[in-house]
């Protein structure tokens, strides 16, 4: 019996340990987000938060629902596979509210971005030295951007 005579200090220490563990559990309950560990060692809810960020590029399918005429013109020419917003820029706001007019484009910078001659570009990609090619005239004098080939009747 005498063996257990001096166990008081151990019990007090054990009680402290239990209290500390309880405090840890309470803090953990409030500090660790609810969805942490749902799929792995991260907050599961973050995927939905990232997915909820606003879209700026509407996507060419959205453009085509209204602009069937331009789609037809584009499909007939070399720019058939170039998406609308590749040149026109992000227009989700315009798609949401058509009264917001898209900014006017400047062909002088836009066309040259892709078609300026450079040995680094693929050989079969149409390239021009803009100054020699047009002598400073804007590209749309001769080329219609949606279907850029020059037809017999001239640009439309």
């Amino acid at each position, binding site marked *: 019996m005498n063996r257990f005579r001096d166990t008081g200090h151990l019990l007090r220490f054990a009680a402290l340990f239990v209290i500390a563990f309880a405090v840890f559990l309470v803090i953990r309950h409030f500090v660790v*987000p609810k969805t*942490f560990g*749902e*799929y*792995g*060692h*991260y*907050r*599961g809810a*973050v*995927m939905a*938060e*990232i*997915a*909820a*960020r*606003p*879209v*700026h*590029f509407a*996507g*060419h399918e959205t453009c085509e629902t209204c602009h069937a005429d331009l789609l037809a013109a584009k499909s007939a020419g070399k720019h058939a*596979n*170039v*998406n609308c*917003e*590749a*040149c026109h*820029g*992000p227009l989700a706001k315009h798609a949401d509210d058509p009264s917001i007019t898209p900014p006017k484009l400047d062909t002088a910078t836009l066309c040259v*971005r*892709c078609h*300026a*001659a*450079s*040995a*680094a*570009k*693929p050989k079969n*990609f149409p390239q021009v030295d803009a100054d020699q090619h047009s002598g400073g005239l804007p590209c749309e004098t001769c080329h219609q951007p949606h279907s850029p080939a020059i037809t017999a009747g001239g640009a439309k």
Partner: protein
Amino acid sequence: MNLDRRHFLIMLPAAAIAWEHVLAGTPETSPNYTMSEHWWGMLIDIPKCIGCGNCVRACQAENDVPDGFFRTWVERYLVTDYNLENPVVISPDGGKEGFPSAPPEDEGKYFFVPKMCNHCADSPCTQVCPVGATFIAPDGVVLVDPKYCLGCAYCVQACPYGCRYIHPEKRVADKCTLCYHRITKGLTTACCEACPTGARQLVDLKNPNDPIHAFMKTHAVQVLKPQMATGAKLFYNQLDGSVR
């Protein structure tokens, strides 16, 4: 259905996750229902890239990337025959406004290499995060939790492709999300949408009808730094051996 104990135990966690949705009568809204159906990556067709910088501008517009930081950028390589291992690489402002014209008389070959997060299946960046702020989502996209990130930049150092940065205002790690807010809605990424030549294609490896499967069988497709075994999912067609 005959279930042995081993398979019953394997199925228990999956059943536990779906259970509340099954009880609610809507098993199709189980949390990983759609995520588990995808395994996203991207195909980059180097011979098609013209270095116009459309992808870089589109990415910055779509994701509000601060000036001077890039979630995607384009590099121009010049590989000369007398110094094959040390190509001359330029990327002025990430290739955002294109590149200076290359004179044709220069010796060597030129090509453009668009770069971005490789969304590695065994990504070094997620393994080093001390707090669980960056992770591989169940659909294979490597994401950052901006509310959980400490900004310690350990992941920025760990990424062998240099695809991460510390956001100058938020002070947390930031990177390409593979336009997670778009691909989860059925849209393609902003860079793919804006690419005029189709040099970038979003691919879903779990979709058996994705053209990537046929493409991979007939083309020389490579990933960057395969020796690092990162499981990169940015597939480059006709990648030159000098690209680092």
